[in-house]
């Protein structure tokens, strides 16, 4: 998508990742800012279902034309589902970073971690600084 957007229903990590928390699970992805900085994503190989992810640690990579970038987990948990459609269409990460471009879904191991994340307004102001 051409215009920057940061949905209000998401939580944000300073490394430009988002989480959509639904009960004990959360969907994770990268923000508009992250995909814009990367440029066209040309390859994404999802991690395996069952893998543990730790808040603030890299759990996968996205590859643009020029570079490989680590993706940081905004929350800890175990991966229960991955976006397999991205193997064929990694550009969904650019075109729809909060929708079709989601990366993984995790079962949260510590739902209270979400309190350390930013809301959309805080994240947007962090980008301006």
């Amino acid at each position: 998508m051409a215009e920057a957007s940061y949905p209000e229903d998401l939580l944000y990590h300073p490394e430009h990742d988002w989480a959509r928390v639904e009960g004990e699970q959360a969907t994770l992805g990268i923000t508009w800012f992250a995909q814009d900085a990367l440029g066209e994503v040309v390859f994404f190989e999802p991690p395996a279902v069952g893998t543990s992810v730790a808040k603030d640690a890299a759990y996968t990579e996205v590859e643009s034309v020029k570079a490989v970038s680590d993706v940081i987990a905004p929350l800890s948990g175990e991966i229960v589902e991955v976006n397999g459609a991205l193997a064929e269409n990694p550009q969904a990460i650019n075109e729809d970073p909060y929708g079709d471009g989601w990366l993984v879904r995790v079962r949260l191991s510590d739902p209270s971690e979400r309190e350390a994340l930013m809301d959309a307004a805080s994240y947007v102001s962090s980008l301006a600084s």
Partner: protein
Amino acid sequence: MSAPASPSLRRTPLFGCHQAAGARLVGFAGWEMPVHYQGARAEHIAVREACGIFDVSHMGQIETSGPQAQALLQRLLSNDLTAISFGVGPDGGQGTGGAQYSVLCREDGGVLDDLFTYRLDSERYLTVTNAANHGRDLHWFRAHAREFPQAQVSDLIEDYAMLAVQGPRARELVQAISDSPLPRRMTASRRRLAGAEALVCGTGYTGEDGVELLCAPEDAPLLWDEIVRRGAVPAGLAARDTLRLEACYCLYGNELSLERGPIEAGLGWCCREHTGFIGATAVAATREAGPAEMLVAFALQEAGIARAGNPVLGGGEVTSGTLSPSLRRGIGMAYVPVARAAVGTRLEIDVRGKMRAAVIEQKPLYRKAS
């Protein structure tokens, strides 16, 4: 995430054109350069199918002139300078000179830079340097010029902007604004383009036909706008890199460095040891004995993208890697032991802990339909 461009970066005369075209600008070899505009893949395809235009004004120019210009360059450059022709063009006015690729070596054969040299006149040559190496090249030229008192070395980096217009339609678009027919491939000649004086060179770095234009910095925006208006797509460094990698052209700092010689890089064809250039003895010895490693081109046999620095199992290392927009596969170049450098050899590449199968392919990986 990429860091914001530093304010200390130099800007080319086309900076305003890039901003107007919506470029993402990044720091590259001390310059603030467009990495892409709307998207690197579309820019790549535009060059393969029609025409793209690149700002390469970050590249440097060194002019060597005088009665000993050829002798000095023969000492510095690996190729045979006497093979670069110069003659008065068919129009009887403008002279047309040859273009030649070569490497600049140290005594031990390590590569200082790879360069194109254009003959501008019977005793005048222009050598185009890589941005990151320009200062070192210039120092090297000047240091050795002391042995050739009748050769003058001039730094012309401030005098020239440089545009590369590349693709099957490139010549047609530039021809439309030229006062006379464009010089052929591997030759260079002065023309007036849209009224501006320019050196038109039949060279490029994409594997497509096209021209490179050297002009006064103040004329560059006009030329850029005229050529874009006629249909050339602005293309950035990302597309330039995927295009050159498909064509298997070396990039200094990736395939070429002081640690390796030109024979290993597959550039023996531009080394003429009989000319006695600096490094010729070392290059001849490697050619004679055979190198330990060779630069090969490969394509992955599965999903994934190998990148520079990835180790090759059993010895060797990837020097450049990308997803080829034309071939839609991971491609790259790597140095591998010479015993496993034949076309068709299977390689296992360690891509950040995952083993990816690749096969050594014939260079270039992409060849334009003729």
